[in-house]
């Protein structure tokens, strides 16, 4: 039952998604690509590109997109695909909702909680690893098809890291590069 699976997977992503949208990517990929085969790795990369180009948080964007595409790829109608995207988006926010409401109630006690502080000595470095894993998993033959891919990667890296080019401009430039080079 794809709708129940979507709901469950996105609850998990919402509950274990520490460290922001990029750290969430390896979680999403692990579930949506590796475990359930809802979308291919290439489609997943495209989702990330689209999320970076469009307004809003990557977590919401990818949930909406993957929710739609997973149901659509399984052969269901457009209406059911929209239902899928609604379920995924709702599910990814649900744990936040519950946690934030509980914590708002205990606001000050949570703030200087030594257990939370201690857990984060381990969680902080792990989220760096999670982001790195997301990048490493996407460095494959589907995304890097020839030497030109590596040139685009190197150019994009230098422009974003050294020259602080805005991601949306970077995406636009890379799209133009694709049109010119291929």
């Amino acid at each position: 039952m794809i709708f129940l699976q979507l709901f469950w997977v996105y609850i998990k992503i919402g509950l274990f998604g520490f460290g922001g949208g990029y750290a969430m990517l390896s979680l999403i990929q692990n579930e949506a690509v590796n475990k359930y085969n809802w979308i291919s790795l290439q489609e997943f990369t495209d989702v990330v590109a689209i999320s970076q180009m469009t307004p809003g948080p990557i977590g919401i964007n990818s949930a909406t997109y993957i929710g739609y595409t997973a149901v659509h790829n399984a052969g269901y109608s457009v209406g059911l695909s929209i239902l899928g995207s609604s379920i995924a988006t709702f599910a990814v926010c649900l744990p936040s909702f519950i946690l934030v409401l509980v914590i708002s109630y205990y606001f000050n006690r949570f703030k200087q909680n030594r257990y939370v502080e201690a857990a984060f000595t381990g969680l902080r470095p792990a989220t760096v690893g999670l982001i790195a894993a997301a990048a490493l998993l996407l460095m494959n033959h589907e995304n890097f098809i020839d030497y030109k891919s590596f040139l685009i990667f190197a150019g994009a890296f230098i422009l974003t890291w050294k020259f602080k080019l805005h991601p949306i401009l970077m995406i636009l430039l890379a799209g133009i590069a694709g049109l010119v080079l291929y």
Partner: protein
Amino acid sequence: MFRTLFFTFTHIGIFTIGGGYAMLPLIEREVINRGWISKEDFIDLFAMAQSLPGIFAVNIAIFLGYKLKGFWGSFVCAMGTILPSFFIILLIALFFSHIQNDIWVERIFKGLRPAVVALIVVPCINAAKTIGLSWKTAVIAITAALLIWLVGISPVYIIVAAAVGGLIYGLNKKKY
């Protein structure tokens, strides 16, 4: 009031591209200028929203909405943040399945895909810098990355292990 909350957050949702952290300056400006929250409280809220799982911008919206108007306030703020992205992406998803195999689109995406990887590497380096990785914590980061990348372990286990490890280490350290 609910309407103002909703449209403030829709506004924030529409005008930020490139993830939750890009939303922050806009959220800060909107909610502090309206006198909804003091600068100090906002910094506290920021720290808490960051230490929770889930989507950062949504966490902030829920915290703030709850503080201002209770449960329904948090619901309205969350909806305001989510709905613009939801509808934009839904339109793209509807449209993209028709143009996906177009030769021009395919060429554009051949260029995009390696750039996307670079756009993930950069925040990874930034995150490493922000938390100030030492050689000890770098080992945790590298082990986590390798376990997910090469061994195929679910990131869920990595997160649970990191939190438990941090708890044991952090709580014992304070005794001495």
